[in-house]
């Protein structure tokens, strides 16, 4: 009986250790493999890389402001006003409201992702690429991934815009058909 409990205990400890190791392994960011040639290239081009990053970070800030204004304006000045007008006229705009809500949720995702990307870019710019090329490259890889996520968020917003337009077209077709039927 005692022997059975010992085996059970060992198995439990082994299972827990495996789970723990798997968690640790997945939490760690695998650093990208860097060849000596690449390290040397980062060191030798450090000045121009930093200059490009600074320029990109600045133009990204402008892009973020302009995109943000455009997305917000579309939501508050166009979609919300249309939804409100439909509600005041006691017409069914539920699909349009649903798409607007999704659009607003995805806009929040866009904001959060940009924040994360921006923070990583700030960190990246602080790393000395001549002294720490490996650390610099890890941060660069992260920033690259986060930028792609921001890009995906803008694509999702574009899909929402299309969805709203589609829902509006359906509403218009139905509304005009009903109006025509009433007049006939």
């Amino acid at each position, binding site marked *: 009986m005692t022997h059975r409990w010992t085996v059970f205990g060992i198995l439990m400890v082994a299972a827990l250790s495996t789970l723990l190791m798997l968690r640790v392994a997945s939490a760690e960011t695998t650093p990208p493999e860097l060849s000596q040639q690449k390290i040397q290239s980062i060191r030798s081009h450090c000045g121009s890389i930093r200059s490009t990053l600074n320029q990109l970070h600045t133009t990204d*800030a*402008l892009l973020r402001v302009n995109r943000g204004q455009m997305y917000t304006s579309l939501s508050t000045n166009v979609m919300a006003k249309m939804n409100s*007008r439909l509600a005041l006229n006691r017409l069914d705009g539920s699909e349009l409201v649903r798409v607007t809500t999704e659009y607003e949720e995805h806009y929040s995702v866009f904001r959060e992702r940009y924040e994360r990307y921006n923070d990583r870019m700030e960190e990246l710019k602080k790393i000395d690429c001549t002294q720490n090329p490996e650390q610099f490259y890890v941060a660069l890889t992260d920033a690259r991934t986060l930028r792609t996520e921001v*890009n995906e968020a803008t694509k999702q917003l574009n899909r929402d815009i299309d969805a709203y337009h589609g829902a509006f077209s359906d509403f218009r077709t139905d509304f005009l058909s009903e109006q025509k039927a009433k007049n006939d």
Partner: protein
Amino acid sequence: MINSVLASIKQFLLRHQLGVMLTGSILFAVLLVYIALLAYDRSGASSLDLSHPDYDGLRSQITTEKPDEISSTGLITEEFLNEFDKIFSERAKEAKEIDAFGGNVLSDEALGITQ
């Protein structure tokens, strides 16, 4: 012991009322500024603030918000729906005309990092 310390503090405060008030006001103002800056940083507003000196040349490129073209009140008519469709199509086109944050601007090739 504690009573005597408290009594001496009270005596000090009463003797230097003006100084204590001025120091307290300054410390309170510093605390409020700290909270405001913390909120400015944490909310993400700092990353969107183009009044930063580095962004001096970019400020002219900020697009101004378009005036309200659609009213949230009024009847739903065929004319209004057509007008809305036109405005929405223009805005949608504007939103999709550029691939924002796309491209390989951070790739090894773009940054001149050789393999």
